[in-house]
């Protein structure tokens, strides 16, 4: 008998729970400007997220999935990506989307039930509600990049629950065997609605699912923005330059219900959220910035005000947008609407006159 394979799964953390740096640090840890940008972005996401929940509770927004506590994951990824990389999001990725040109008001538009919320102004994919199905699209897009010999990469973000879906393994398998330039990033926030990480899979880490597909996987402290950003940059470099896929498991915690239609108090052990909150990413970075004398209380107050203002503007924009005319249900069915559907569209035009005048 001989052992034919072993594997290792590294864990990365540069800024720890006490806001202290590790011994070996990436350049980002000393980049004051970028760190301040990241801090401001995370704060904006947090404020917008809180407002979105309030909007749902007051009947102005539909079901909304909070990104609270996971700001570092999405903001870090967005910062690490190049402009012409391709993003394949799932639905919690506000922090990434806003760095790729999506307006806050457009994000509200989607959750408010308006199709125009899904037309990002760039080449990224739209939201994906059927869990995990988008990883296959990411693999396909990566193939197109490889085929055209472009220097680009694809980022596919999913939750840890998605890794139970067959589609996700199929996507990883083909990425591995065809050497596709795609980085699979798992936001492991410990919960898939009410199903805990332990009940989802017996695998010790999510990261090691990559081993079965033939490439590397690593775990990253999802509350450490420096680790998130740096490891994503490295993974994208590998994908872009060597056509090697990688799986990044960002370990963090879901600091709100799955969506505003869920009630985690039914299944989440009491006090877990409180305990995990001690590791939350924004406070962690703030303490570090203050230590380095790169951030003051005054700036903090100004930032809160500016975020509140930005969010207000976004909310007003969203609330005052002209609704789509009803016949627009037929606008994007085909490149050119086949004749037989015109009577149905005309019926909607009549209704539109009554409804919107």
């Amino acid at each position, binding site marked *: 008998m001989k052992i034919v394979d072993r594997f290792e799964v590294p864990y990365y953390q540069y800024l720890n729970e006490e806001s202290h740096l590790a011994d070996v640090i990436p350049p980002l840890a000393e980049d004051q400007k970028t760190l301040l940008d990241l801090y401001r972005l995370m704060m904006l996401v947090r404020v917008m997220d809180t407002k979105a929940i309030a909007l749902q*509770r007051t*009947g102005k927004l539909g079901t909304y999935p909070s990104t609270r506590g996971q700001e570092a994951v999405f903001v870090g990824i967005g910062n690490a990506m190049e402009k012409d990389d391709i993003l394949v999001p799932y639905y919690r990725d506000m922090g990434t989307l806003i760095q790729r040109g999506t307006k806050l008001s457009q994000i509200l538009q989607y959750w408010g*039930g308006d199709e125009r919320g899904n037309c990002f102004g760039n080449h990224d994919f739209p939201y994906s509600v059927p869990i995990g199905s988008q990883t296959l699209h990411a693999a396909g897009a990566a193939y197109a990049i490889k085929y055209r010999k472009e220097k680009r990469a694809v980022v596919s973000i999913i939750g840890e629950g998605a890794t139970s879906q067959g589609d996700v393994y199929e996507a990883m398998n083909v990425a591995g065997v065809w050497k596709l330039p795609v980085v699979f990033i798992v936001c492991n926030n410990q919960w898939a609605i009410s199903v805990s990480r332990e009940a989802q899979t017996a695998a010790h880490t999510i990261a090691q699912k990559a081993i079965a597909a033939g490439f590397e996987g690593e775990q990253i402290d999802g509350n450490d923005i420096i680790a998130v950003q740096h490891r994503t940059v490295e993974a994208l470099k590998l994908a872009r330059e060597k056509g090697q896929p990688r799986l990044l498991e960002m370990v963090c915690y879901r600091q709100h219900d799955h969506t*505003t239609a869920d*009630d985690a*108090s039914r299944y989440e052990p009491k006090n877990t959220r409180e305990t995990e909150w001690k590791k939350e990413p924004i406070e962690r970075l703030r303490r570090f910035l203050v230590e380095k004398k790169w951030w003051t209380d005054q700036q903090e107050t100004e930032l809160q005000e500016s975020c509140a203002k930005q969010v207000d503007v976004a909310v007003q924009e969203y609330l005052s947008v002209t609704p789509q005319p009803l016949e627009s249900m037929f606008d994007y069915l085909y490149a050119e609407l086949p004749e037989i559907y015109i009577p149905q569209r005309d019926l909607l035009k009549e209704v539109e006159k009554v409804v919107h005048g």
Partner: protein
Amino acid sequence: MKIFHLPDLGEGLAEAEIREWYVKEGDVVKVDQPLVSMETAKAVVDVPSPYAGKIVQLHGKANEIIKTGAPLISYESDEVVADKGSVVGKLETSEKKWNDGDVIVGGAKKTSTTIKAMPAARVLAQQLNVNLSDVKPTGRDGLITADDVKQHMNQAATSTTALTGATEGLRGVRRVMAQTMAQSHREVVPVTIIEDADLTDLPPKTDITARLLQAIVIAAKEEPALNAWFDGKSLERKVFNEVHIGLAVDSAEGLFVPVIKNAETLADAELRKKVDEYKKSVMDRSVAAKDLQGATITLSNFGMITGKYATPIIVPPAVAILGCGRSRDTVIARNGQMVIGRVMPLSLTFDHRAVTGGEATRFLGAVIRELQK
């Protein structure tokens, strides 16, 4: 005052229970400040304030259930408009209880046999105004074919020829008229009595129509046999105390007969008002279906245009209709002298299955008496 209504807190939730208020009446709150903890079937959620302002009223106590869309909190405000909690779309909630009533597993019983006819046969029958129940079927299982309809036409007593060339299918009111008149012709036994009313001594500007309507009311009290309904099949009649006068009104689309209900309770001015209202609502097609039903007797003022006497048609179940022709100046005899008088011709048709000649003549006499008073 601004009212914040309870929005839909989840996906289609009908109600929520107040767990705990975080504020009280008189408090001044900020936007997004948590107001109350609500428990729904799915979750316990905090509801934040959509407005900044002073709380004037809390619409419920702890443990009370509030329906989605119902008022939750009132704020002091200069605005008068009430906020409906701006839920997207309409809520599928209801106080109603499911009432299945008589749910039948499977199908309901048939109460009458129906006619089986080829679609082409049906269309043909409609065009030729043939009643399918009169046609003899020769197809399989009692099926009426197009040929059967043609055969029926050929056997008809009168040699009606089918219309050729470009024809127009009757629709709407015209269609109903064709069918109704034919039915009346088949069932009613009409007799028409004609007479003139002498209106010479009436003051000018008298509202003749209102007088006519009042005259009908009084005549109906004296001879109620004409203010009745009759069923030729069961040979039953129903005599009415109330007088609901149908008023024939012509329009571009055809004849409409709106009904002045309880004319016996209305004064002249009210009658005139009703008449004018109906004329208008017929013209702009806003007359309601319910106003076109329930006449116990009808007045047809065909004389607005031209014509003296007529044989107006009764539509069952009514038994009488009074036709009023064009008033004219003419020579009449008074005290052995020829004088110019104003005369209004009246034609009363009655259904002789249900009304006697005596009843009819006395009715007409009463109408004329009242008109000339």
